[in-house]
């Protein structure tokens, strides 16, 4: 299904940069551009409660309309998107980082360290994250975007740990590890010099996956009303829309823009991770 681009890139890169990866990165690029540049052009004030006439459909002064509480939807989108992305990135880095470290340790050292990490990771994975997150989030008095990111990160490291650990184990079977060991390299040295460079693609790929899952969980929690109450984020926008029965009252311009932006973010992340898989594993080949 991928279109192999025949570009003149060095080495074998041309055939490996499939259309999927490019499509994914472009979508993410558009969103990133919108989030970084947008806030400079659109005033934040407009996105706050009561700053414009409420309940205006799109058109004229308000390209995306305004909600029942007097926020300009366009301004809201422009400021909410970077906030949501920021939280996702933080959670992705923390969760992915923690997961990678644990996976590397479990895979490299084995024994009871591995057993403990694996059992905890596997057990936590089977728990419906929303349940625990809801309990935690519901009990925190002062929720902020950073706290939300950390909370979500605490339950998103497991998949990375599993993947990285599996990869470390498979690399350790290879010949050059044995050679390094015979040469007298200590376990930590082996870990950093031989194993890690080969696990890097998996770490990067799981960063993308973790961020994606984190954004999903964050938006979910915010839509339930457990987010940082007055911050401008995509999930909160949906929550406010729900609270005012925007769907039933037909204010589609209130919930449609955040959904479109969210959809774009996820599709972009998904395509990027699939495309990146192909880039990192050219042996996967082209599907007939």
């Amino acid at each position, binding site marked *: 299904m991928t279109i192999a681009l025949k570009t003149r890139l060095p080495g074998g890169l041309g*055939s490996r940069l499939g259309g999927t990866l490019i499509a994914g990165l472009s979508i993410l690029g558009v969103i990133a551009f919108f989030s970084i540049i947008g806030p400079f052009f659109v005033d934040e004030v407009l996105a706050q409660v009561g700053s414009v006439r409420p309940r205006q459909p799109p058109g004229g002064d308000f390209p995306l309309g305004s909600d029942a509480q007097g926020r300009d939807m366009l301004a809201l989108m422009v400021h909410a998107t970077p906030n949501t992305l920021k939280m996702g990135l933080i959670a992705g880095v923390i969760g992915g980082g923690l997961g990678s470290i644990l996976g590397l340790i479990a895979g490299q050292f084995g024994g009871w360290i591995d057993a403990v990490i694996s059992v905890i990771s596997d057990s936590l994975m089977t728990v419906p994250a929303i349940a625990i997150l809801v309990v935690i989030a519901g009990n925190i008095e002062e929720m902020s975007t950073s706290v939300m990111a950390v909370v979500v990160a605490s339950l998103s490291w497991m998949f990375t740990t599993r993947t990285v650990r599996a990869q470390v184990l498979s690399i350790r079977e290879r010949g050059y590890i044995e050679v390094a060991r015979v040469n007298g390299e200590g376990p930590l040295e082996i870990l950093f010099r031989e194993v890690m460079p080969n696990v890097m693609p998996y770490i990067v790929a799981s960063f993308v996956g973790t961020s994606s899952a984190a954004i999903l969980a964050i938006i979910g929690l915010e839509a339930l009303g457990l987010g940082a109450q007055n911050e401008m984020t995509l999930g909160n926008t949906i929550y406010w829309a729900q609270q005012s029965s925007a769907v039933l009252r037909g204010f589609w311009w209130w919930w449609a823009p955040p959904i479109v932006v969210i959809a774009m973010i996820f599709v972009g992340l998904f395509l990027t991770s699939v495309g990146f898989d192909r880039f990192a594993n050219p042996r996967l080949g082209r599907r*007939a």
Partner: protein
Amino acid sequence: MSVSGKSVSGLNVSGTSGPILDVQNLDVVYDTVSGPARAVNNVSFALRPGERLGLIGESGSGKTTMGTALMRLTRAPGRIAGGRVLLDGTDLLTLSPRALRATRLRDIALVPQGAMSALNPVMRLRRQIEDAILAHEPRTTQAQLRDRIAQLLTRVGLNPAVADRYPHELSGGMKQRAVMAIATSLAPKVIVADEPTSALDVVVQRQVMQTLGRLQAGLGAAVVLIGHDMGLIAQFADTVGVMYAGRLVELGPVAAMIGSPRHPYTRLLIDSLPGIDVKRRLAGIPGLPPPLVKLPVGCPFAPRCPLAHDRCRVDLPLSQEVAPGHVVACHLYPDNATLPPLTIKAEVQP
């Protein structure tokens, strides 16, 4: 006496003694990103009923591709680009899918490379033999199936109780023999064995080859044995063919091939085998086979050939007969009667 009651006189169905398998100008191409790779390049040979042909070559010589192509099992991105494969007079390449399925196993059977993984891991052996038989003889009763399976397994030296096991419960050698039992269950006229012993140790290798030989003789089937182990093939085959870069460079009776090979590559292959009586330095063949997407003009072996001369780099040598039943594709002939002595070149151009 074969299991399915077919004739074992060594004659083919029409009663003549023409070739049972006649491959003419077969071309198999892989569509890669860098262009078409000609994995099998204008290969022709013929097999008499009951004859054992050994096809030998390095990795990438096209021999496995050839084996799969004979039964039209080539997978994308490969495709059969030309030629004919006549099995007892019928061109397999033009058969309808339904007719092709009927011919497979019944007339021509595959003993695949890596028989370790040729069996479905979630199915008992019995079912895997049954569905093969039922696909061709649907009216076989349960009782008949039980008997036939027991016979087939005994014939390859396996205990019939093995039928109720799963593949992972069998050893490598047992799996290989089970696969051979399936392949010969309908007494095919041609057996294509693609490296049937590559993952096995020497003792088991010998057993498997002996079983294959016995089966083949009992059925009077012709065998195409594909491999890279010259020693193994020489012990088994009547005729040996050598493939290089997708071309068949030499084909002849085994004694002549080993005793007085005509093609320099064949000579080098034989020389690279360690001898048990004589102690000498191991000789390899310097250089690498050419990339199949970018074949050199002229003879594909010229860059590595110690006897190459100017004509070799310009003209593609065609197959010519140098002795009865012995053909070679090399510019040294017909000017020479036998192969001149070789001297390994100091450097090799790519």
